[in-house]
């Protein structure tokens, strides 16, 4: 199997196009200092008004390379498009072919030249005072997700579903030597097949709400008996994890079954039309915790399943968010590496339908949940804890709740209570990390 859709895995110069302050030329100065002739152009058009920086975007399929008649332009092994001035005849075909203004031309020498990212340490980004130019080390992230997508392209989940995204992302890390276990719920549509058609190229078992970890126990034991390294991986929702299916999960953790269990937590029974589960946030409106004169959403705080699992003798426990994909991937790798017991990854999975927010909001919701300490990112390896993304100065909880219609009915007092719950949750993990620290940061994949 070849790598995923994009064959070029490289770091990226991210440009917030048109977001420069007027008359700022810091990037150009830095580039001139580095390379004598600037490869970046500051477009200052006060009459437009437009203020932006333009340079080579390092296309995956560069048109300039294809247009060059002498072969002077080529991509190097890191995906950087370079121009060999010794072979350039100054025809200008590359500059005409590039739609992005990424080719520069030295009229004095009659030669083209272009950005080479300063070999991965661009001076422009380092000099940018506003953050418009940023050097993003995306190669490492893309390498984390380099396995092919093993699931059907057409699936009956809502567009923009974070569970679907998380499912696909997880197995781009886990890869093909795995058996996937699903249970009734939204995301099972990616794994359980439909009629006589499979929905994944992985071997898959559609379990019951009540027996995923137990079927996995049997399969994992059998795989070990016959000398297979294949991993058993569950991708199951919070209802089958925290409520009706908690007993077998508890049993498998206590017995130390070498399985990987990913719970995608959309805080409710979303596939049956948004009913509350044990993990639903307090105050949230659902169809079984509606809002009226006598009830204002869910009255109980959520069951903290990842903590429960950590206190169960699980080999590895982590919380994860798709807003922090490098963190998610690193934790999946660590979960796969822990063969001496159950590995549990709790993936935060906002459901925009059930949580009453726009279709394109789930990543931002995921990020805000971390930034407000509503959903701390941490891991525990054999009972040693570590916060993987510390939040030194949390945003007010209102920055999170205002994204979601399910909290619209909450007044200041209820929001305060929610904020205190988040603080308690974060401090519990902080205290555990201080008392039983997981010392070394594990190597990034």
């Amino acid at each position, binding site marked *: 199997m070849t790598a995923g859709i994009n064959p070029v895995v490289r770091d990226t110069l991210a440009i917030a196009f048109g977001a420069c302050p007027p008359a700022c030329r810091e990037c150009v100065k830095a580039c001139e200092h580095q390379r004598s002739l600037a490869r970046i152009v500051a477009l200052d058009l006060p009459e437009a008004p437009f203020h932006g920086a333009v340079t080579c975007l390092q296309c995956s399929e560069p048109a300039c390379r294809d247009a060059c008649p002498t072969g002077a332009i080529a991509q190097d092994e890191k995906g950087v498009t370079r121009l060999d001035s010794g072979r350039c005849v100054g025809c200008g075909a590359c500059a005409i072919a590039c739609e992005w203004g990424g080719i520069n031309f030295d009229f004095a020498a009659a030669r083209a030249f272009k950005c080479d990212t300063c070999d991965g340490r661009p001076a422009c980004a380092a000099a940018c005072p506003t953050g418009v130019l940023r050097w993003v080390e995306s190669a490492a992230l893309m390498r984390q997700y380099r396995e092919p997508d093993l699931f059907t392209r057409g699936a009956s989940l809502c567009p923009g579903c974070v569970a679907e995204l998380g499912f696909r992302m997880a197995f781009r890390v886990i890869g*093909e*030597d*795995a*058996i996937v276990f699903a249970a009734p719920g939204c995301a*099972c*549509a990616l*794994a*359980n*097949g*439909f*009629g*006589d058609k*499979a*929905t*994944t*190229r*992985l*071997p*898959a*078992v*559609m*379990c*019951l709400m*009540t*027996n995923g*970890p*137990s*079927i*996995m*126990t*049997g*399969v*994992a*034991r*059998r*795989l070990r*008996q*016959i000398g*297979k390294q*294949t991993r058993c991986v569950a991708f199951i929702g919070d209802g089958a994890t925290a409520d009706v299916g908690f*007993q*077998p999960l*508890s*049993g498998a953790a*206590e*017995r130390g079954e070498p399985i990987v269990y990913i719970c995608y937590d959309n805080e409710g029974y979303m596939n049956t039309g948004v009913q509350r589960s044990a993990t639903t946030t307090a105050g949230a409106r659902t169809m079984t915790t509606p809002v009226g004169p006598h009830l204002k959403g869910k009255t109980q705080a959520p069951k903290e399943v990842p903590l429960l699992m950590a206190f169960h003798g699980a080999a590895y426990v982590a919380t994860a968010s798709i807003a922090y994909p490098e963190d998610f991937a690193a934790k999946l790798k660590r979960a796969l590496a822990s063969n001496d017991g159950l590995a549990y990854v709790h993936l935060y999975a906002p459901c925009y339908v059930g949580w009453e927010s726009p279709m394109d909001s789930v990543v931002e919701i995921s990020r805000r949940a971390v930034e407000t300490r509503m959903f701390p990112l941490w891991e525990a390896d054999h009972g040693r804890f570590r916060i993987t993304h510390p939040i030194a100065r949390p945003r007010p909880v209102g920055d999170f709740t205002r994204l979601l219609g399910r909290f619209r009915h909450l007044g200041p007092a209820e929001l305060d209570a929610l904020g205190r719950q988040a603080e308690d949750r974060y401090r519990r993990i902080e205290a555990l990390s201080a008392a039983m620290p997981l010392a070394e940061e594990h190597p990034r994949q």
Partner: protein
Amino acid sequence: MAAPAYLPQGAQPADGLAPRLLDGNKAAAYGVLLCRPDLIAAYPITPQTPLLEQLYKFKADGRLTAETVEVEGENSALSAALGVTVAGGRAFTATSSMGLTFMYDAYLFASGTRVPVVMVIAMREQTAPTTVSCGQQDLMMVKEGGWVQLVCESCQEILDSILVAYRLAEDPQVQLPVNVCYEGYYLSHLSEPVTVPAQEAVDRFLLPVRDKRRPVLGTEHPMTFGTYVVGELYAEYRYKHCQAMERAGGMLDAIDGEFRAALGRPYGGAVEAYRAEDAEFLMVTMGSAAGTLKVVVDELRKEGIAAGLARVRMFRPLPARELLGLMRGKRAVGVVDRSVSFGWNRGHLFIDVKAVAQDLEPRIPVVSFIGGLAGTDLRRDLLAGAARTTWERGRGRAGAEVIWLGLE
């Protein structure tokens, strides 16, 4: 060490040579041991528990190589067993009563996914009222669950039925889970002489699981187990399931033949007929009470009353053809049940037998006798009374269709 009293003078108990005194649970454990399972997952419940303990003893003694999983509940016991089985292994589990109903969703998953797992039901009453006593009510709670169900009369038959169960379950024409059922205490805790066959003989009868061909969960040939299905395809799955059940029923005679060739003991197929051919009327039952009814039949014959017995050995699929054949020409049928169907207030086996009897011409009386609930004895006098009542019904005497033995 002196030979036990039940053995002939000078004989020593040894596998495959002489009978040893085993209760039903131990007999089942020997059956499991001889089938070389890869994994045993179970959760203790009375009266099945000593079976588990015996298996763990075998493991501690190094005789059993299977992995064991001490699960946290019955649903997980069956689920772990079916996990091993879908991944190509051979698994065993056992339960009773509320443990069986607690695993009901996994029970249905196992049959619908056509997982050839074998499970003992040491039969017991259902709560409430709370009791741990013998009954067949737990089996009746799952009779519609799509499993093949064998019901034993003796401890020897328990051991032998475990071997037959794997042979049947794993047959490519069947691919269904199989229950081996026996009554709590009357069989689970009753000791009888049991011949434990030699491993080589069992290996001839039951191939190692690695030699069986069936769809296996794994990365070599990725497949989906338990796929989501609607409409006609669902009906097709059901249709094929029913066809497999029919094949299982049709195959038992042949498997009994193989068993006799390899291990020397004959069984009578799905229904054991006892002095039934020339009988004027027929008693029908299943399980341990059949032994007492055989004595009753013999006694009535001495009085000149031509009684006969049909013991249902395979409860599901129902051996309707065999039952119909045995009932044909009889003047009445009496069915003894150790369970009751709420709502119609008859015994469960009675309901099946009565339905089959609709094909008889002319119609004959079929009487339901309910007894032996919660471990009360199905005594010889009670069963003799039931037989006499049935005989009288065949000679025109009117009466109730259902009679609670010992209660009315």
